[in-house]
């Protein structure tokens, strides 16, 4: 970092509070600024002029802008509340105790080892990386290149800055608190509309803080003071300062990012979603630089930035300055500097005949002027020391010593938000700017965003915009065309194009654009991607228009023809933490808890988030998962296991047509299902692919309960409702999803009936009275219960449903009863292994997005069903009946462990690469059988029983035998017990 030795702060003036010094550090060095400073102005006031190294060539760079247009000063900032890895210094209000570090440049941005690359800069042209590091593979080079470039370092121990989300609605949103926005908001006071005025700065006024103006016949200061006070007092105007509108979306919904500041930093980030009736866009404009050789040296900045640093922050950005301009606005910087006591060497104007009044004013200040001239070279090493100037018509070059240079190349309206909504900006050659050609519905513009205008005009246009919102007609004096008398000047015709920087953040020069033009990348979107023009964190605010104007010149087209690139949200960088807000850690997503969660927790459950937090296994005396799972399986096989199945879907389907309605969904015949009985079946999508499996219970002829898998509980209810509403609205059927009203505990194992009996049920539970696949309602353990005898495990199994509030009590009773029998709680993992031993499928794991019931061997069941059902017609299409389909089979092997995911190799192939004929969908070791069992989807599998296949499993080849699923208790004796 280089430092100028002299004073860098004016003795008086500016919007800073000299009574409140603010101490901060930069690269470990203690510095002092004032309340009201931005980080950029404070650094300038402390003499810091090299703040960054450029992205590609490692050239020293300084402060170029004074707001979010600044392409260069991206710093790592830690305040009392958090850390930002790369934040624009000009947008950060200075805070007590802030620790700031430069991001590029090692060890210091003023002496950068990487700067050694500069001599080779000639060879690093557009597309350099892609062209050079293609062989053998870009991926090999990418990490290395990424490390030497880029902005920001991730701070692994960064504090999480508090953030919250807010949703709100208002009638009118005024975007921008400059002259036009303030005038509009002021005109809407007491209008009966709820108005939000969003401004990205801490203080209202925009450019009035650094421009001389008379508005409505008053001084800018007086106008600003009066309007600010009125807006603050108005009940219907909600001022959101330090709030950037980051995106505009359909339905007039906007996203906004608000920073809530305390003295020591950003105490809160608030991410808004705002729904708006009408919009007044008053975002103003941003100044463009001029392009010439050596235009990137520290000390060179936008004219508006120089004026702002001097007037708003009382900073002395240089000791002797020049101004380079193609319009009248640049002269403001000269007068501002001169009146602040800064030596102004010369105003260089590209125009041959600037207005005479400006010439006289310069003479009055004793400032020299060169008209019809341009800069052909700049001098200096880490900071500007002089410029060389020459008449555009030719002639002798003249060197002028200066350490500051202000650039005024005209302004670009900030049309981004309108463009988010699809509005294409159009080029207006009179003012050399892209202006909004139209507005989205219910939008209007005010001020500079429409076309460059004076503050007085901007105020009038703000009032006019407010009138339009209120539906009042108001005559507005036509804006003075081209009030700053701009004459477009895009680049010098000769000179070193490789030193003319267009995009200062990404080091894109005129030479790169020339190369792109030569290679045919003339479309503006190609130009952007090929050269990276405008792809930096500043999104090319100061470079895009210059770049595409230069491309237009090179390809012999109008600027209009070239057009702009697409604008997309966000308008400026939005921290992910602000978007996430409090949705982190345990609040990351809406977890669902079992009714008896606390009982499981106390029993040592290790929960897994599968949409619900479900016990995966239960800790036992320090044993690991595998031992616990085996113990739980053994309990279910030899005594009794208790499994919480509360998430299983329960949907009541009732009404005169309930039976006929459900028959349209299931592959099995529901018409023959008797009251008190249960049937297992599948639901299909319209294309015949399996959607869900489950059991349907007939309580009586007009009431059924659809039991579906846990993950599909909501989807199946929505599916039934959708078909009812859209396809069969005349069927008299009511769909009532009641899953969460019930706690559901499955009791499985040879002692299951003993457990149930111990609850003193008031129904006969003998196997003959209450057989497999039947349903009873009654009082069990004193609770009103619905009990289903169904089995997922292959054992005798009951599912006891009680109202959810009694889930705790039921589970505790069951545990008391089961414990002396050797029973215990069973987690999800053991439960799934038990069903795998039995060979039952798990939809989603053992089926995929192609699997039909025919692939499960259910063709016979379907053939027997007389009626139609969703998906049935698709099962006779050619793809569903082709011979090479993957069908579900069992597999077993005794040697190596089987694992889900292993690919089955085709035919005689022994090693990949080769064709695969299917894959293992589920697998585990079966303690009951003594070998490894699994399910697999295998081409033509049903015809391949007994065949030995080779399975590729993460490098190993495993031999396994194809078999029918369900080696455990193949005769269902245990199930029917």
């Amino acid at each position, binding site marked *: 970092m280089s430092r100028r030795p002299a004073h860098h702060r004016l003795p008086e003036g500016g919007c800073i509070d000299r009574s409140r010094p603010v101490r901060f550090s930069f690269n470990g060095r203690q510095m002092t600024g004032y309340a009201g400073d931005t980080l950029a102005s404070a650094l300038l006031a402390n003499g810091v002029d090299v703040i960054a190294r450029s992205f590609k060539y490692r050239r020293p760079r300084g402060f170029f802008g004074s707001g979010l247009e600044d392409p260069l000063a991206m710093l790592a900032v830690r305040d009392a509340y958090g850390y930002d890895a790369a934040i624009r210094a000009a947008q950060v209000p200075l805070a007590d105790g802030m620790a700031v570090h430069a991001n590029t440049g090692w060890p210091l941005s003023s002496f950068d080892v990487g700067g050694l690359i500069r001599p080779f800069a000639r060879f690093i042209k557009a597309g350099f990386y892609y062209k050079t590091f293609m062989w053998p593979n870009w991926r090999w080079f990418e990490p290395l290149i990424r490390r030497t470039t880029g902005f920001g370092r991730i701070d692994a121990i960064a504090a999480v800055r508090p953030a919250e989300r807010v949703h709100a609605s208002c009638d009118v949103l005024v975007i921008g608190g400059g002259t036009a926005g303030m005038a509009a908001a002021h005109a809407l006071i007491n209008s009966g509309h709820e108005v939000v005025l969003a401004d990205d700065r801490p203080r209202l006024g925009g450019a009035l803080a650094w421009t001389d103006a008379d508005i409505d016949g008053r001084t800018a200061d007086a106008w600003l003071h009066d309007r600010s006070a009125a807006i603050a007092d108005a009940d219907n105007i909600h001022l959101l300062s330090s709030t950037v509108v980051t995106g505009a979306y359909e339905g007039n919904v906007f996203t906004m990012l608000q920073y809530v500041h305390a003295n020591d930093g950003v105490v809160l980030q608030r991410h808004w979603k705002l729904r708006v009736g009408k919009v007044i866009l008053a975002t103003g404009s941003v100044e463009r630089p001029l392009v010439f050789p050596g235009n990137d040296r520290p000390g060179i900045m936008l004219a508006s930035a120089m004026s702002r640093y001097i007037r708003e922050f009382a900073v002395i950005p240089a000791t002797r300055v020049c101004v380079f301009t193609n319009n009248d606005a640049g002269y403001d910087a000269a007068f501002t500097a001169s009146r602040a006591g800064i030596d102004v060497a010369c105003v260089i104007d590209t125009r041959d005949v600037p207005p005479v009044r400006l010439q006289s004013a310069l003479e009055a200040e004793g400032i020299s002027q060169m008209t019809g001239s341009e800069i052909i070279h700049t001098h200096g090493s880490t900071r500007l020391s002089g410029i060389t100037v020459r008449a555009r018509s030719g002639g002798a070059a003249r060197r002028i010593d200066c350490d500051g240079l202000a650039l005024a190349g005209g302004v670009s309206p900030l049309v981004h938000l309108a463009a988010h909504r*699809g509005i294409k900006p159009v080029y207006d050659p009179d003012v050399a700017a892209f202006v909004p050609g139209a507005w989205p519905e219910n939008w209007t513009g005010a001020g500079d965003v429409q076309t460059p205008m004076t503050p007085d005009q901007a105020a009038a246009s703000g009032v006019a915009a407010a009138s339009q919102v209120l539906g009042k007609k108001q005559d507005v004096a036509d804006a003075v065309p081209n009030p700053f008398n701009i004459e477009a000047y895009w680049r010098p015709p000769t000179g070193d194009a490789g030193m003319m920087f267009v995009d200062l953040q990404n080091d894109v020069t005129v030479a790169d654009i020339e190369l792109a033009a030569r290679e045919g990348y003339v479309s503006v979107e190609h130009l952007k991607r090929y050269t990276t023009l405008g792809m930096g964190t500043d999104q090319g605010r100061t470079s895009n228009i210059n770049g595409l104007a230069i491309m237009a010149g090179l390809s012999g087209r109008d600027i209009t023809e070239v057009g702009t690139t697409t604008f997309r949200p966000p308008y400026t960088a939005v921290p992910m933490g602000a978007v996430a807000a409090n949705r982190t850690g345990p609040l990351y997503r809406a977890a669902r808890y079992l009714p008896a969660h606390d009982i499981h927790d106390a029993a040592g459950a290790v929960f897994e988030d599968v949409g619900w937090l479900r016990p995966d296994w239960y800790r036992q005396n320090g044993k690991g998962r595998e031992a616990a799972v085996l113990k739980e399986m053994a309990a279910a096989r030899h005594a009794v296991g208790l499994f919480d199945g509360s998430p299983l879907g329960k949907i009541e389907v009732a009404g005169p047509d309930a039976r006929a309605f459900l028959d349209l969904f299931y592959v099995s015949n529901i018409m023959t299902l008797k009251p008190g009985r249960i049937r297992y079946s599948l639901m299909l999508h319209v294309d015949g692919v399996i959607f869900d499996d489950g059991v349907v219970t007939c309580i009586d002829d007009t009431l059924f309960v659809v039991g579906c898998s846990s993950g599909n509980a909501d989807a199946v209810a929505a599916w039934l409702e959708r078909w009812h509403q859209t396809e069969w609205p005349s069927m008299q059927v009511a769909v009532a999803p009641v899953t969460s009203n019930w706690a559901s505990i499955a009791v499985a194992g040879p002692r299951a009936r003993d457990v149930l009996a111990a609850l003193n049920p008031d129904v006969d539970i003998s196997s003959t009275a209450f057989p497999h696949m039947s349903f009873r309602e009654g009082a069990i353990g004193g609770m009103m219960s619905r009990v289903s005898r169904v089995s997922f495990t292959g054992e005798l199994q009951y599912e006891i449903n009680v109202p959810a509030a009694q889930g705790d009590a039921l589970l505790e009773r069951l545990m008391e009863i089961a414990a002396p029998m050797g029973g215990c709680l069973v987690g999800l993992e053991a439960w799934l292994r038990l069903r795998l031993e039995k060979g039952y499928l798990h939809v989603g794991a053992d089926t995929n997005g192609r699997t039909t019931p025919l692939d499960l061997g259910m063709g016979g069941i379907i053939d027997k069903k007389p009626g139609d059902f969703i998906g049935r017609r698709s099962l006779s299409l050619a793809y569903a009946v082709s011979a090479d389909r993957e069908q579900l089979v069992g597999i077993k092997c005794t040697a190596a462990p089987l694992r889900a995911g292993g690919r089955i190799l085709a035919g005689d192939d022994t090693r990949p690469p080769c064709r695969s004929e299917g894959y293992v969908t589920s697998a585990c070791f079966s303690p009951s059988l003594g070998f490894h069992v699994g399910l697999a989807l295998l081409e033509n599998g049903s015809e391949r029983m007994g065949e030995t296949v080779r399975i590729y499993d993460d490098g190993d080849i495993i031999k396994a035998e194809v078999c029918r699923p369900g080696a455990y208790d193949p005769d269902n004796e245990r199930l029917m017990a």
Partner: protein
Amino acid sequence: MIIIRCPYCHEDRHEEELEYGGEADIARPTPPAQATDDAWTDYLYMRTNPRGVHFEQWCCRAGCGQWFKVARHTVTHDITEVIRYEDRFAYQKDRDA
């Protein structure tokens, strides 16, 4: 953000509350068993996919759960017509007349 006023609960609903249901008025051949393979696969897969006004189905998922129909421009997302499920779009009524 797409905002549609539900024609059943009369609330403005934003896209997070809504569920998209694809093109509207795709007739299901009945009885399916008598549909030709071509007619059935058209029903399953063929859609107009226009650049312009698209007639489609939406559900007030987080609200009243009702399915309804919407005319939406696929480029601008302008919603020009929202009707109850049993109603017909203006262009259909014109065609009927």
